[in-house]
């Protein structure tokens, strides 16, 4: 009988995406006055390029967070994909085939993690923590800790990472396609609706006939697979495989998803929001660099943005609930 009617104003206020766009736009305006380099096409492109590959991992993490899971291994699994693909290429395999095998290997890692979570009943956090360390160890073992120079990579493969279609870099095209596809899937398909149900209330999902273990298994595997794809693109971009790449990436990725509205307790989050979260972090970091702020301060500021976002969220939730 008691129905809370939300006014349009408060609803717009609540819409996470609107808030983030406003904040990002504000930074743009301020920065365009503060630095003459900021609004140059070159700077804007490099900013988007800087997070566009990582954004593929953000998509995976967001979906996993929505289902109620988390993955700390994304950084090292991405690096491992580079190392596997790079090693196979150096061993004489075709780069495309090497990449495919590397991506499948990452899916395999995700499947193992998924099985440990659903089959044995371990927590995502612990399983992925273990895998994070193991995958990094494998990277070091496979390369002796040194980057693999892949100078003979064919140009058409490198094109993925460094080429452009017209004025637009290929990595940005790939990024936009991934965002659009997964945003659509998450909003419109029954398969991803089941992910939302599972994360919102796993028991209630089971009581709605959703095979929740299968959902959790698949989202875990999807995240690792997307890491594999990102790793291969990074390899094409750098022309090398770097065993130490992506250390600390998991924190950045989780922060982006959470700033974008995903919750560690599952059930909420959007792809668009998470990408805006990524963009915000990239814009802030680019701005601070242009303003000659020390990198140490950048970490402090990024951490503070994350805490502000979640605090804000929590207070809004409390007022609603």
């Amino acid at each position, binding site marked *: *009988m008691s*129905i809370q009617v939300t006014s349009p104003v408060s609803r717009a206020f609540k819409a996470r995406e609107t808030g983030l766009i406003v904040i990002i736009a504000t930074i743009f305006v301020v920065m365009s006055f503060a630095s003459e380099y900021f609004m140059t096409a070159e700077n804007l492109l490099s900013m988007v390029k800087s997070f566009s590959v990582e954004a593929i991992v953000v998509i995976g993490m967001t979906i996993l967070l929505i289902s109620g899971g988390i993955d700390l291994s994304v950084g090292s699994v991405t690096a491992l994909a580079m190392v596997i693909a790079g090693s196979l290429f150096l061993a004489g395999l075709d780069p495309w085939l090497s990449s495919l095998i590397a991506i499948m290997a990452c899916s395999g890692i995700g499947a193992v993690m998924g099985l440990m979570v659903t089959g044995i009943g371990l927590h995502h956090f612990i399983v992925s923590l273990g895998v994070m360390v193991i995958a990094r160890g494998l990277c070091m073992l496979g390369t002796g800790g040194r980057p693999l120079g892949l100078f003979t990579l064919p140009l058409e493969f490198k094109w993925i990472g460094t080429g452009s279609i017209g004025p637009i870099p290929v990595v940005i095209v790939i990024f936009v396609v991934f965002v659009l596809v997964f945003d659509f899937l998450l909003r*419109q*398909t029954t398969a991803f609706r089941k992910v*939302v149900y599972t994360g919102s*209330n796993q028991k*209630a999902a089971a*009581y*709605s006939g959703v095979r929740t273990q299968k959902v959790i298994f698949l989202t875990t595997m999807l995240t690792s697979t997307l890491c594999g794809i990102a790793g291969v693109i990074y390899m094409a971009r750098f022309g090398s495989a770097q065993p130490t790449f992506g250390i600390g990436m998991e924190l950045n990725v989780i922060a982006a998803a959470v700033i974008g509205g995903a919750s560690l307790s599952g059930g909420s989050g959007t792809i668009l929001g998470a990408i805006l979260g990524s963009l915000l972090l990239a814009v802030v970091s680019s701005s601070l660099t242009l303003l000659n702020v020390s990198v140490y301060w950048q970490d402090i500021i990024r951490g503070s943005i994350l805490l502000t976002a979640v605090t804000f969220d929590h207070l809004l939730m409390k007022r609603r609930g």
Partner: protein
Amino acid sequence: MTDTVLEIRNVTRSFGPVRALRGINFDLKRGEIHAIAGENGAGKSTLMNIIDGILQPDSGKILIDGRPVRISSPAHAQKLGIGFVHQEIALCPDVSVAENIFMAATNQSHALLMDAAKLKANARDVLSQLSDIDPSLLVRDLSISNQQLVEIAKALTLDCRILILDEPTAALTEREAQILFGIMRSLAARGIAIIYISHRMVEIFENCDRVTVFRDGELIRTDKVSETTAENVVNAMVGRKIESLYPPKLATAPGQAILEVEGLSSSRFQNIFFVLRAGEVLGVAGLIGAGRSEVMRGICRLEGNAKGRVKLNGRELKLRDYADAIAEGIVYLSEDRKGDGLFLDLPIDANISALNLAHVSNGAGLIDRGTESRLAESLGQKLNIKAASMRHTVSTLSGGNQQKVALARLLAVKPKVIFLDEPTRGVDVGAKSEIHKILRDLASEGVGILVISSELPELIGLCDRVLVMAEGQMTGELSADQLSEQAIMQMASNTGWKKRSA
């Protein structure tokens, strides 16, 4: 000066627009056992929560020993000598019985170290009055009824003058309940005032001194038990003759069998046989822990690994999981609406389509928002769900409307059999009789309806036939003309008697 320990003067409390308590005047005397009766939502729990400091009254006064007090928290209530045994068990499962019993004492103590040996000895002392539970066991290893006894022991350790017991016998066997009544009487003889919440008339009339009835947030009447009858109390509870509350029962003989269960067994229940027929509303009675929900969830493949035969319209079913059961048209309404029945943070329409996403999507697995909202609108209209928009989250609805959403979810699959576990728990009186009518209508349309309820008047009023379970077994069956609270309770505590006295 007087022997009134607790006095409530003109206390009022609202939740949003709902007035949960209106001008309550109530008094509790030293050494009395005072029963409080009333349906769900009548205001009993709200008043108890106010006395325990969990809620604050909007207006009115609370006096303890004649002095006005403001009870700010349960810890404060404890200091004032108020002990509250909640209906829900609130123990730490991974900690020993002894530590649980003295949780409050440990919390208040300034000692740096725990004295395990002393704790255990003290716990044994307290428990010795109740039962032979080993205080060093972990609470998670105890049965539900023993956990309930630990809850009671916990309250006894606080040197309380006012003890509130909220339906403490719901999970107990008859024998354990009798022990509890003995303890209550000896506590009362020591001068402790006891508030005893129950809807079991037999218990009230055998053990209590006075009885107060609540209905719709008002205190209807307080009588000495010796000066009133069970019928008066029940009529005061429901406010009208009990028959008129429920839709008319099946006038003709029920139709053919829809669901036949033959020799179903699992670790939680043994050798269950029953038949659910077209047109009837079949009830299942039993104490908490008797295995009622487990049987239904076992049939649906929601939990456990039940073995035995289940036939739907004469055809034997082979179900792997609940998704298969839903596909066959067998659905289950959970007893815990908030815990596992609904997605509180999701919109109403997304909740309603959850069991039948195929219906609101095209062949390629794309959800059609239009179909989804039309489904929600039509079921919302059919069940009279009061919501401004089907896009609002379920958490904004009242308990009764939430329950209707939970029911709408099931109806979205056009089920053949619906198991309903406590379908009207925490639902206001109006919505309750609406739900009863919906169930009766569904039964007349040929849907198999099976209702689990711990509220005996509900089973008696609603059902054409009632199965009774105790300790994992079917212990009896009562037809409409045999139904009475006594008959059900006797069967429900049946094996408890046999087992303990053997």
